[in-house]
């Protein structure tokens, strides 16, 4: 065996490995064509009712707390995009209790790679992207109805918002996963912050009052990836800081990651 040669050669990059995982995952799914198509369709339709709700609400009322129909559509579509991307990427965290209880995590530990990379790569869930597609359609519809003047910075803001918002949701999924190390079962209560956020995130968060806004800024930074960039994009505020505020939401990932490390340490000392 050529041990020396193997030791000095470079590691396959994490990015390449991640895409290799995804490619295998998609190959797996293609084995079950009907299931793939129907799940995607189901995902596409499932969040559609929220849009219908907004639609009928605004047939009767023309604005909610000063926000127009197109503002709300914009908000809704951004949150759904963030959520569905996070579900697609971080599905492994969402179903982590299964991974721990079935002992799959032991297998992950016996492979010379970062645990998170393996959990995410192995549980990539492309069917959730159909929800994303639906959100993009509504986003386009919202834009076409609003009179927003688009410029370069605003486009960047939208992209940043979606990326960082996805990260926030991934962070919450990560908390959920970390707690499985302690409880074995997933905690339904975490869904308040994931599914719940998707539901109440349809409306700009300051609709719910000051306290809620504060909680959603300093505890879980939803407003940074929803309310503030929205205010900048719709021209309610010309504070350029709001355009780049989504990036600050990434700080949320630090405590989530710390909790995860703590959980892994606990797992190593107690087993499953």
């Amino acid at each position: 065996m050529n041990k020396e040669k193997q030791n000095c050669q470079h590691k396959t990059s994490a990015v390449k490995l991640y895409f290799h995982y995804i490619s295998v995952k998609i190959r797996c799914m293609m084995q079950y064509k009907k299931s793939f198509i129907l799940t995607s369709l189901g995902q596409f339709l499932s969040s559609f009712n929220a849009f219908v709700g907004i639609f009928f609400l605004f047939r009767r009322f023309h604005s909610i707390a000063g926000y127009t129909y197109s503002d709300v559509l914009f908000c809704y579509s951004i949150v759904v995009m963030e959520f569905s991307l996070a579900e697609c990427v971080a599905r492994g965290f969402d179903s982590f209790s299964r991974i721990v209880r079935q002992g799959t995590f032991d297998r992950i530990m016996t492979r010379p790679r970062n645990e998170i990379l393996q959990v995410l790569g192995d549980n990539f869930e492309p069917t959730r992207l159909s929800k994303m597609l639906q959100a993009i359609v509504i986003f386009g519809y919202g834009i076409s109805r609003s009179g927003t003047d688009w410029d370069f910075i605003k486009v960047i803001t939208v992209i940043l918002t979606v990326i960082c918002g996805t990260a926030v949701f991934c962070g919450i999924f990560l908390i959920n996963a970390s707690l499985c190390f302690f409880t074995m079962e997933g905690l339904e209560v975490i869904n308040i912050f994931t599914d719940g956020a998707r539901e109440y995130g349809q409306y700009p968060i300051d609709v719910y009052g000051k306290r809620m806004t504060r909680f959603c800024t300093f505890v879980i930074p939803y407003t940074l990836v929803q309310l503030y960039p929205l205010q900048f994009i719709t021209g309610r505020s010309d504070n350029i800081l709001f355009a780049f505020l989504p990036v600050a939401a990434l700080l949320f990932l630090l405590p989530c990651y710390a909790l995860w490390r703590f959980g892994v340490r606990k797992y190593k000392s107690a087993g499953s």
Partner: protein
Amino acid sequence: MIVVKNIRKTYRVTKRNAGFSEAVKSFFKRDYETVTALDNISFSINDGETVGYIGPNGAGKSTTIKILSGILTPDSGECLVDGRIPWKNRIGHVARIGVVFGQRSQIWWDVPVVDSFELLKDIYSIPADIYSRNKNELTELLDLGEILRTPARQLSLGQRMRCELAASLLHSPDILFLDEPTIGLDAVSKIAVREFIVKLNRERKTTIILTTHDMQDIEAITKRVILIGKGKILLDGDISEISGKGDIDRTVAELYRSYEI
């Protein structure tokens, strides 16, 4: 070289009696019991050895394997595997070992086996030339051939176990841990697996650590046996100490009885 010194590992398990009211009671107040899985065990294994690690269910075999493969951290004690502390430097350690869990698959269910191999190549960063040499060698030795192009879910248990063995050896590990590799296999597959492991040890000098309840496995593969019971090492010696005295299953059962485990 594996050196294990005074390793101790305890678990806390919950206890309650049967029945609904007991379940409710335990919801509020739980009785814990500390179970000592490993009680100051020590042994060392040289490079290229074949060791059968035996003992009744719940004796601490899996716990030992999990500690040696970096999954678990012991409460106290020292352990060095080729100079590495398994739980301190997990990634560096597991790159040099292979682990086969008989009850748990490591190949992807819905893709042809060769796709799983390709993914493992990236997970272990195996250089292309070593990968293809190992793959060809293992394909020949384990008679994988056409099997490699079949999705794992459509394989028989015996075929799958052969693939599992190959999958855990693609990165040419120095040490191979086998946790009940022949469980549920038919006679032909069992013999194929055993012969392969013997050959692997002879030709590649891979250290083999085997846990099993199948004493024929032990007789066929290992030269040394370590017997563990109630977290303690009760016997550590040459296979000849237990084999060659008639039916090996009876001899071992007798042994378990004499140690009251």
